[in-house]
């Protein structure tokens, strides 16, 4: 594998990690609200959050493209006001990965929060703790293993993201090429050996992330 190929691996890992970090605060917030609060129309929010998980990734990518392209609703504003282009840059890879991983994080974190006995939170409140303090000292620590497992799952999903990325970021050597795109392209140009090498790395990374996630989840259930 040449230096350029390792750059692709590094870029994929970096942008997936960044995407995961970016969705964490928002994802945990949404997960907590879904776990602890009820309101009319809650199922609509649940469905919207789950959409990227269920829709064909290329369809999600197409929506993002229409939204963020230079003539799109959001994209045109960003282009004119801030001279910021998202489509066909690394930012599009980041965004596509973030959107596709979001539902996975929310799902896992919600289950983790629901697993925390609400009475423990109530007891903390009776002792005078405010909402935020309850969250950081009671809810979050008790849900942490599930949250970490969900974060790893989201990271693994971001690593393997293809459909939305290819739509909204394209495959631009050195700028937006991820491992999945590199595999696809290598097969297209007949470089099967290279494709298999990327495949191996991809499997290794995904295996590591998912195995750790499952391990943490099983320990979560045990206690």
């Amino acid at each position, binding site marked *: 594998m040449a230096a350029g190929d390792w750059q692709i691996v590094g870029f994929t890992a970096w942008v997936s990690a960044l995407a995961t970090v970016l969705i964490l605060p928002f994802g945990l917030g949404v997960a907590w609200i879904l776990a602890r609060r009820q309101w009319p129309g809650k199922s609509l929010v649940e469905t919207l959050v789950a959409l990227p998980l269920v829709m064909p990734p290329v369809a999600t990518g197409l929506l993002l493209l229409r939204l963020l*392209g*230079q*003539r799109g609703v959001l994209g045109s504003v960003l282009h004119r006001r801030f001279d910021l282009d998202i489509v*066909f840059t690394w930012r599009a890879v980041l965004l596509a990965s973030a959107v596709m991983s979001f539902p996975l994080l929310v799902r896992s974190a919600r289950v983790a929060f629901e697993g925390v006995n609400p009475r423990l939170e109530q007891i903390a409140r009776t002792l005078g703790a405010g909402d935020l303090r309850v969250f950081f000292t009671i809810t979050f620590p008790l849900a942490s293993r599930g949250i970490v497992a969900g974060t790893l799952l989201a990271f693994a999903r971001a690593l393997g993201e293809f459909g939305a990325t290819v739509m909204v970021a394209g495959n*631009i050597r050195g700028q937006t090429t991820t491992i999945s795109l590199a595999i696809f*392209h290598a097969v*297209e*140009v007949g470089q099967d050996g290279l494709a298999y090498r990327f495949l191996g790395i991809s499997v290794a990374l995904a295996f590591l992330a998912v195995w750790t996630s499952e391990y943490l989840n099983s320990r979560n259930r045990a206690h």
Partner: protein
Amino acid sequence: MFRNTRTLVWFVVGALGSPLTTAAAELRVWAASSLTESLQEIAATYEGSGGEHILFNFGASSLLARQIQEGAPADLFFSADEAKMNSLDAQGLLAEGTRRDRLSNSLVIVVPTDSHLRISSPEDLTTSAVKRLALADPEAVPAGIYSRTFLEKKGLWAVLAPKVVPAASVRAAMAVVESGDVDAAMVYKTDATVSRKVKIACEIPGGTEPPIRYPMAVLKRARDPGAATRLLNYLDSAEAGRVFQRHGFIVLAHSNPTK
């Protein structure tokens, strides 16, 4: 729903098996995406006058050749460059004596219809006003390869390569420039005339290296080689030639097939 396992098995076999009985009267044509409109028109005429139903798979010739190599059930291959046909030939996948060079084309630089950019020559692509240029994948897809080799010959590739947004096929490159997410694209002249959302900024005179050639051939694994050859001969006819010309292709004159 199923009274026992046996009925279930027969149902599954029947459901899976039924397409096989209808497939016999169909011809499968794997063709370059730039041929979409002209071949669909020719197919309509062919089917209308009693010919077999034609199923198309349009796409980048590189991808199509790869699919055929891996065993795709195509009867006829219509490629946008010689290299892809040569690679299938080298693997013995073409039916003897059926290969013909049928068409040629020319390249153009297109911009979105509402673009204010002035591109009167390929050199104008190097200005900073052109931030991104869409090409069909310059490493694999014929349109991209023709574009790249032309730009290399002009000594412009080194400057332009960082601006290139590679697309899966020449039609995908068209879609990208139509959306306005790139400033310009290099596509076939025949593609530019199909779309109303782009305008031709500059035409590339002929003389690409290699020259643009669209060969077609029947595949050895064609289910009905006779029917496939009949279609090939129809594609080779003057009547089909007029359709190709109307869509902007250059019809090559030949008295004998190339192989």
